[in-house]
């Protein structure tokens, strides 16, 4: 691989120079301007427009789920209830979990950045099945509508985990419609995953071999594999819940002859791999950001790429670590514990390689890089606390406490959401053709980082003290940590609102970006911003590996001053 670097540098250099010659140019005939009207959006088959449709849709769910979180955090300032009843509180954490997991985190990077960038990254005109791509958005919206219907008719109080027999026999809320919403949305995930896999196999530009693929493509491929293989199990599980709840067929409730622990096996067989659906694409984004902003090829390309695949495969074999106190057999627990320790190794490999990539770089601290560095910090803490949960004896104590809550928020929010924000800032000039205000961006990244840590670090301590999750009221000695957490959440809220405001502003008023403001090497930067309807005027030809950056040459990145 090393032998081809000089070759690729010359080709990339010429490509880069080609686009730098026209700085500040706004592509007049682009995917946004070529068609007009609501109809042109609702019937579009353009992967870029579909990516934006997804962005708009998941933002709505993110906002609803965030409001639910905010209400919970306000309620938890005092040990005794002040704001809502226990019934409402339980519905709040259910809606927060269901919407964040299935209607924000799982679709976030794949359907927005993946849809927009993946075909351009591999030099393709579109995804392999553009009509299916649009269909998957409609299915997603239908699933979301069912979930919202359930919410508006009183909500669900089972928790996002739908544990039986509570969900099948005892809950008096709209379990079936909520489960149906998730069931339907799952098909959207499956179609998207399949579409990405076929696209990656069949649509790569000439010369773009598997080991020349950007790591974001590798991570999306690994994610798609999980989406296609795991999501059907979730669909089956949710269908079984509805069958037991509606017809009283004994599957999970022991009173009907069922086994409640069977549900947990089925649910986590999907939901643990789903955790990797929620983090792998983020890792891919980070590989793009770290290389671009340290002007270096990635350290250990093959190891970082293979780590994604290793995580995707091993991730299917660790579901039982959610069940160490469930009455699962002791020996099963041991197998799941050891596999869970092993799945941490490829994640570690990624972190080490990102760190090594910085060495001898020329590091630009632009907003996306701040998010990327924040990601590494928070993901490392999230990953290391995962070891506590894999260790059987310690898990017994911290299982179902705030320690678990803190751990997975460090991965899901500290990891995935930071990566999503970093990626959104990085590709924003490509998406909109304009720069976001850089100073505001840096400020938002730092506010998010500080707010996040203040929100979730105290929850590790709370968890070890014994505060169980999903508690509406709690003993007064835990109050101080809840107050800190709520204070952090309000800072975090500011960190999320700022980009929302300046992205909307920059859409019309931001400075024109030009094709390649970051002087990045990916194929997506070798076409005007915003890109034309079919991405490239000529199909690009790839002659070398990705990330042919050189740190020895000092380059100016084009960022907006404020």
């Amino acid at each position, binding site marked *: 691989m090393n032998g081809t670097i000089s070759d690729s540098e010359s080709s990339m250099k010429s490509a880069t120079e080609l686009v730098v010659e026209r700085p500040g140019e706004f592509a007049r005939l682009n995917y946004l301007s070529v068609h007009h009207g609501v109809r042109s959006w609702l019937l579009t088959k353009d992967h870029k427009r579909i990516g934006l449709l997804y962005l708009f849709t998941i933002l709505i769910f993110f906002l609803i789920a965030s409001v639910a979180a905010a209400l919970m955090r306000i309620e938890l300032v005092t040990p005794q209830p002040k704001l809502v009843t226990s019934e409402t509180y339980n519905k709040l954490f259910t809606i927060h979990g269901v919407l964040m997991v299935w209607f924000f985190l799982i679709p976030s990077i794949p359907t927005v950045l993946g849809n927009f960038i993946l075909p351009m990254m591999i030099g393709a005109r579109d995804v392999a099945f553009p009509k299916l791509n649009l269909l998957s958005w409609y299915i997603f919206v239908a699933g979301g509508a069912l979930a919202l219907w359930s919410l508006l008719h009183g909500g669900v109080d089972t928790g996002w985990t739908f544990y039986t027999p509570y969900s099948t026999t005892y809950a008096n809320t709209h379990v079936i419609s909520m489960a149906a919403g998730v069931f339907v949305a799952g098909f959207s995930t499956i179609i998207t995953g399949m579409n990405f896999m076929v696209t990656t196999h069949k649509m790569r530009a000439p010369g773009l071999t598997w080991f020349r693929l950007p790591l974001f493509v590798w991570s999306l491929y690994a994610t798609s594999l999980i989406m296609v293989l795991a999501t059907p199990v979730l669909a089956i599980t949710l269908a079984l819940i509805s069958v037991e709840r509606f017809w009283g067929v004994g599957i999970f409730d022991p009173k009907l002859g069922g086994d409640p622990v069977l549900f947990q096996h089925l649910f986590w067989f999907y939901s643990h791999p789903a955790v990797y659906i929620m983090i792998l694409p983020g890792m891919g984004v980070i590989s793009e950001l770290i290389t671009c902003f340290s002007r270096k090829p990635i*350290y250990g390309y*093959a190891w970082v790429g293979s780590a994604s695949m290793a995580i995707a495969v091993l991730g299917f074999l660790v579901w039982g670590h959610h069940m160490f106190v469930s009455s699962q057999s002791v020996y099963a627990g041991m197998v799941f514990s050891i596999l869970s320790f092993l799945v941490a190794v490829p994640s570690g490999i990624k972190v080490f390689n990102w760190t090594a990539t910085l060495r001898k770089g020329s590091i630009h*601290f632009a907003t996306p890089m701040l998010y990327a560095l924040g990601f590494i910090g928070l993901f490392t803490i999230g990953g290391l606390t995962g070891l506590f949960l894999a260790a059987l004896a310690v898990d017994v104590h911290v299982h179902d406490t705030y320690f678990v809550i803190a751990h997975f928020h460090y991965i899901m929010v500290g990891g995935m959401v930071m990566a999503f924000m970093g990626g959104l800032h990085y590709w924003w000039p490509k998406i909109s053709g304009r720069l976001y205000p850089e100073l505001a961006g840096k400020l938002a990244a730092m506010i998010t980082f500080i707010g996040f840590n203040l929100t979730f670090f105290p929850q590790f301590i709370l968890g070890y003290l014994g505060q169980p999750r999903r508690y509406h009221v709690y003993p007064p000695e835990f109050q101080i940590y809840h107050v800190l957490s709520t204070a952090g959440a309000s800072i975090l809220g500011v960190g999320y609102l700022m980009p929302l405001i300046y992205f909307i502003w920059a859409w019309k008023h931001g400075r024109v970006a030009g094709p390649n403001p970051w002087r990045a090497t990916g194929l997506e930067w070798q076409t005007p911003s915003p890109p034309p309807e079919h991405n490239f005027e000529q199909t690009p030809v790839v002659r070398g590996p990705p990330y042919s950056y050189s740190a020895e040459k000092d380059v100016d990145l084009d960022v907006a001053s404020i």
Partner: protein
Amino acid sequence: MDRFRLFPPQASTTSHEVDALFFALTLISLFFMVVIFLPIIFFSVKYRRGSPADRSNPRSGSFLIESGWTIGPIFLSLGLFAWGAVAYFRMERRPANAIDVQVVGRQWMWKLQHAEGKREINELHVPVNTTVAMTMTSQDVIHSFFVPAFRVKQDVVPGKYTGEWFKPTRTGEYHIFCAQYCGTQHSRMIGRVVVMEPAAYERWLKSGEPTESIVQTGERVFHDRGCSGCHAPNSQFHAPLLQGLYRNPVPLVNGTMVTADDQYLRDSILQPGKQITAGYQNIMPSFAGHLSEEEIMQLIAYLKYIGNQPPASQ
């Protein structure tokens, strides 16, 4: 300072074991944070854009280094796994010579009964420095019996028995939490463990109304519910005898063997057709819905008691 307390009280033998592993994991995490975050900060400063640092001959990988940070963590993982597994194995094995407590969870309370017959709701009195072993089940949804000060937790699952044990080392009052979400009043399904000096515990046990022991209650249920009509040694009916049964192998009609543990006894009462003893017909009616969880536990306590007696001849 009590408001900023960082660790829960250490009040059982298990709590020391779990905390030792917790501290080891914390140290290892700090180590990794140092070896990751320090280079990031160092490189960020040294190789910030425009700094005069030497950037020549950058490396894009090294098989040796990659193997090092792959294999090193694997071995460390195996060590941590073994430590956690050994401690877990001890936590999951019910020790001999323990005080028995029966626990039934329901939305939203804990019902507990001591072997001597004394009942409690949301409270558990136990003597210090004595092993206490609980047999637990739920009459509705899944609950979880969590005592943070003891570092023990176990789901309480309807339809089956789970066990949890601890040996308190300090007198005092400690939280009981339900840790598995169980519905509207989940966060109010709480209670306390009161760890007492043995003498005070004996006094507490004898206070209040005199009670019959669980075994005596179980014997009464055995006769009142008609079990003795078939299963007594002098019965007219062809039913298995229960003396000497407990913890012994039972041959089944399908040719397999099963050990007569608590779960087997429970299943035989509620689903008599599930495992039919070799040489017998399935003529027993199911008692599902006719016996409360407490009564089933009392019956089993009685069956254990006669199960340890020598087998009677028919």
